């Protein structure tokens, strides 16, 4: 048996590895400690002392003082920096001062609320005053709900529960709304895109109800590192925020390694799959008894990695275990894993991105990311998992073939320069706002001239009156409909009419394995499509448009399908246009567009060779959507200059790059954004690439991309320039026809832009 290697040995070995693309060492930092603020209640101080906390980190004290002097605030905190005390201390202080005070916490998931509840319960136990703090969610038993509504002082819930249960039944929560002092919003960065736009409107409703009962709560928000914490918090809550981003928690020295798997197919510039590489790297540490956490991007990858790692570990140390740790686990299971990590019984954990959220699993020595997590906020949250006490932490990012991964591997300077993405929401999205004005009118009637957020409601209410939803009497609009509006509006699903994906492989045991918006369903779930779900292939047997169901069956074939979509894009209104700075060649624009997509045919494409081995027709109606788009137009002369075919393929390749570069600037789900190239755009007859929000009415993504178009193009250029392939590959412009010429044409175009 080979001798155990130390962390230093392993680090030195890794530094010699030919596939290492970059190595950075980020120095550690000492804790900045300050004494308890003077005004802090003696009982609270005693409780902290009992827990071994004899002083506060500077940001905790600052948060306490800022909140106690009546401000709304947003805190930016890395993982494991004692953020819960930042809001628990002012909340508990205000309840100790006046027991009638109430606080409402909301967390993106039930699991997080449960975790926070147990932490809060322990702290309250040490204070020795009976403060009632409880979770209120779908799992709360009916018989204690009434008690919580009447007497709960700290209510921990989630935005969905607020939306569909608490706000529409506010008359049962009078003591909460009359005495609400604090609203705590944890994990602010999760509220992005459609979900965030919905939540901003739920908060508008919450504020209306508070105003009705005569309270005006302060907001305390916490966020991971994003580019715009303050403006995001302000947009979400409609309040002026004080930003606290100076962190006083200590940090250990961190080694950051970029690992790029070798190219295995020179021709196609294909790299080795990242999973075996991750397994090998993680195995080196686990075998030597060094606790390691691995982050993977999907549940399937988590399961695969766990089973590979368990094989490596078997027989070496029977007691030390490898665990999967992903969303959907019960609190007790998670507690067990956390305990195992602390005791050393668990040596390796493989987790999905979902658990980068503030769940406390303690800290480990090594963190390995299987692929760039998609945004910098996630990178730092995941990296924060490594770094135990005085020891150095090692973080390894294993790049996948994805263009962003390859970009990061080639541009570590960009990676380390600290460019977090913007979070965009659009609370005034017409469709979303209309939904919530309905819910709000159900909760309290609107008066003529009332504002919802900053928007006057009159036009909305008149519309809803015409739809027989509201009734106007003496200048007030009342809910006059037998429906319960919150039931029909989900905060999480992208579009209201989503399709259920049903696996009917096992007759008699059909099960829903996912859902997809209409647009996605019509382009990916047409009949005879091969749909890939978590790495498994399924054949689409039937797409039922009326019932919004797609029936799929597991298959094992050597091809995938790709639909040809005839996308019509009409610009309805140009809100802004400007020439691309420093370029006489291109114009950029932003505005309202109508997207019409008609799926026409699909091709069957063989996996390894990408040859076309068949096709079929798609029989589906046209899909229509109004939304926002940013675009860039090029002069017509380029068509003749490059030749129509080459230029067209260059534009398609360009779209591919832009689609992948966009997440550098906005935090977005892949499903929220689309890019389409037109050789002759209908509104200006010019070759144009459109980037549009894939949600009716838009959620602010393309607007941000319009604002940062020059930088976006620069990144796209970098991606293409730094890719070593000749004719296009998945890491740059994708596979297009005439790839070699197209890539060259693009390079030339960029020189002129």
């Amino acid at each position: 048996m080979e001798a155990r290697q130390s962390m230093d040995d392993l680090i030195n070995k890794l530094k010699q590895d030919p596939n290492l693309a970059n190595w950075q060492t980020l120095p550690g930092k000492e804790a900045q400690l300050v004494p308890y603020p003077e005004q802090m209640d003696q009982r609270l101080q005693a409780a902290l002392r009992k827990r071994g906390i004899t002083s506060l980190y500077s940001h905790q004290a600052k948060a306490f003082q800022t909140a106690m002097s009546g401000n709304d605030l947003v805190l930016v905190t890395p993982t494991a920096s004692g953020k819960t005390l930042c809001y628990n201390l002012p909340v508990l202080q205000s309840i100790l001062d006046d027991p009638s005070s109430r606080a409402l916490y909301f967390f993106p998931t039930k699991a997080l609320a449960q975790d926070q509840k147990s932490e809060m319960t322990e702290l309250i136990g040490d204070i020795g005053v009976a403060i009632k703090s409880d979770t209120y969610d779908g799992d709360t038993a009916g018989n204690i709900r009434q008690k919580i509504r009447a007497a709960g002082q700290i209510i921990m819930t989630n935005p969905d529960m607020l939306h569909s249960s608490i706000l529409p039944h506010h008359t049962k929560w009078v003591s909460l709304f009359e005495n609400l002092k604090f609203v705590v919003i944890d994990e602010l960065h999760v509220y992005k895109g459609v979900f965030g736009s919905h939540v901003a409107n739920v908060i508008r409703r919450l504020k209306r109800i508070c105003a009705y009962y005569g309270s005006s709560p302060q907001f305390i928000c916490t966020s991971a590192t994003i580019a715009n914490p303050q403006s995001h918090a302000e947009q979400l809550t409609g309040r002026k925020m004080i930003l606290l981003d100076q962190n006083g928690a200590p940090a250990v020295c961190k080694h950051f390694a970029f690992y790029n798997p070798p190219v295995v197919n020179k021709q196609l510039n294909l790299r080795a799959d990242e999973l075996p590489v991750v397994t090998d790297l993680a195995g080196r540490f686990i075998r030597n008894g060094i606790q390691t956490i691995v982050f993977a991007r999907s549940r399937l990858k988590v399961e695969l990695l766990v089973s590979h790692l368990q094989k490596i570990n078997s027989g070496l140390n029977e007691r030390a275990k490898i665990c999967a740790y992903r969303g959907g686990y019960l609190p007790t299971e998670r507690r067990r894993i956390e305990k195992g990590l602390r005791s050393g019984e668990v040596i390796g954990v493989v987790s999905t991105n979902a658990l980068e959220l503030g769940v406390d699993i303690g800290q480990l020595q090594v963190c390995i990311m299987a692929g760039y997590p998609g945004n910098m906020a996630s990178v730092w949250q995941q990296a924060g998992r490594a770094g135990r006490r005085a020891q150095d932490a090692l973080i390894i990012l294993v790049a996948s073939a994805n263009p962003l991964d390859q970009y990061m591997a080639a541009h570590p300077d960009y990676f380390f320069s600290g460019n977090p993405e913007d979070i965009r929401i659009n609370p005034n999205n017409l469709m979303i706002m209309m939904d919530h004005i309905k819910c709000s009118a159900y909760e309290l009637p609107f008066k003529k001239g009332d504002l919802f957020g900053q928007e006057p409601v009159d036009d909305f209410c008149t519309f809803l009156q015409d739809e027989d939803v509201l009734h106007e009497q003496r200048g007030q609009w009342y809910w006059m409909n037998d429906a319960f509006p919150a039931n029909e509006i989900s905060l999480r699903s992208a579009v209201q009419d989503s399709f259920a994906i049903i696996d009917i492989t096992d007759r008699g045991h059909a099960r829903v394995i996912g859902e997809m918006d209409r647009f996605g369903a019509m382009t990916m779930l047409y009949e005879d499509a091969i749909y890939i779900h978590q790495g498994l292939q399924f054949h689409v047997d039937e797409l039922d448009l009326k019932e919004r169901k797609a029936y799929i069956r597991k298959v094992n074939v050597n091809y995938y399908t790709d639909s040809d979509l005839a996308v019509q894009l009409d610009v309805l209104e140009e809100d802004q246009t400007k020439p691309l700075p420093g370029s006489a060649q291109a114009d950029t624009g932003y505005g309202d567009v109508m997207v019409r997509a008609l799926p026409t045919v699909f091709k069957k494409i063989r996996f390894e060779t990408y040859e076309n081995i068949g096709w079929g027709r798609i029989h589906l109606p046209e899909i229509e959507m109004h939304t926002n788009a940013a675009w860039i137009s090029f002069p017509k002369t380029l068509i003749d200059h490059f030749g129509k075919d080459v230029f067209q393929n260059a534009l398609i390749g360009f779209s591919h790059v832009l689609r992948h570069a966009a997440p550098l600037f906005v935090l977005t789900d892949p499903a929220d954004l689309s890019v389409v190239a037109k050789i002759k755009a209908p509104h200006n007859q010019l070759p144009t690439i459109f980037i549009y929000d894939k949600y009716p009415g838009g959620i602010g993504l393309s607007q941000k991309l319009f604002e940062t178009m020059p930088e976006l193009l620069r990144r796209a250029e970098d991606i293409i320039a730094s890719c070593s392939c000749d004719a296009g590959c998945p890491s740059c412009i994708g596979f297009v026809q005439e790839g070699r010429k197209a890539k060259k044409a693009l390079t030339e175009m960029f020189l002129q832009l």
Partner: protein
Amino acid sequence: MSLKQKLQLYKKQLHEAQQAERSTPEKNDGSESVVAAEERLAVCHAARELDATLRQWKDQYVLVHSETLPLTSQTGLYPFSELFEAVAAWQQGPDAHPLSAHGLKATDLLFFDTETTGLSSGAGQMIFLIGLARVTSGGVELRQYFLPGPGHETAFYDAFLRDTQSLKNLVTFNGKAYDWPRVKTRHQFVREHVPRLPQFGHFDLLHAARRLWKRRLDSVGLQKIEQTILKMGRSEDVPGKMAPFLYFQFLKNPQASLVKGILEHNREDVLTLIILYCHLSFKILGLATPDTEESFEIARWFDQIKAKNYAQPLFERLAAAGSDYSVEAKAYLARYAKQKGNFDQALSLLREVIRSGSANDSHYIQAAKLLEHQFKNNRQALLYTQQAIALMNHWQGKSERFSTAKLNAYRERLNRLDTKLLNNRN
């Protein structure tokens, strides 16, 4: 782009979204907004047609319809005057019974029903009609409060609460779960201006009706009960679920004819409650002869509220009659006999149950317990325990009556009996 333009642009999409969410496509073409004065005029007119007076609170008003019906009038099984008999009968009856009017006068009972703008219980659904009736020596005093529009709720609740000081003895049909929570919700909105909600106590006739008749009625609704139990018929009734839509139309176009049917519906509901209360009381107290099923359910109810002295005679009659319920009645009687120490009687009753062939596991176990502890007959006890286990095994995977916990307990009993038998032999 201005909001107006945008709304225009998105109209189709928004409209489709609204349609998807709406449960009914009711549409009204006479939707003109009515200015306050015209509205008042129209409502006054409607009030006249509905035989209602206007009661005012500041600039709000409520329509109140009052009438007194003679005690002798009869629509179903009884005239209203029978309520005095029912309340009198309770004075000697079991006072722990949920329907007992022990210590009350007939005039204390307030028969109560509402109509709402929708079935959900959230803050946005309103009560637009409250119907109340009280039976006095002068006749049945019936009163209905009708909300002429959403902006008049203060007047509505003010009038209702001023007129009815006590709500301690409400008689409702599902009022605890339905009407009363809605009253509480809407009261929140006007609580600063109107009297406080008094303490609420109630007799819920849905609960009672469900106990007695759930086996014979596929749905235990008030109208179903009227037809099949109380032999009443309504000529032209507005179905309850139509009420919200008619009311929404009335709001846009205050024509009495739109809501007349709803008021009539509510009026009949309230009057039916009087007859239903009488009928249930008579059945429970034995003044109207219950059939065997009713007897059994009434006896079971008495058993549950620990009124054994009322339950026992009923079970005895059922046991003797050889009815469908005689076996189940005997099982109850066996329990009573055991509690009194009449072990012989208890065992013989249980044996009758077992011989009938319709015994369940607990009957076997009860018999086994008696045999083991009172008669020291372990062999027989073992036999019965085995039969209980056999039943359980038979049910496994087929019936909800299967329970792992019970099966384990029975097996434990079997083991213990086995050991005892072995020890005795040695």
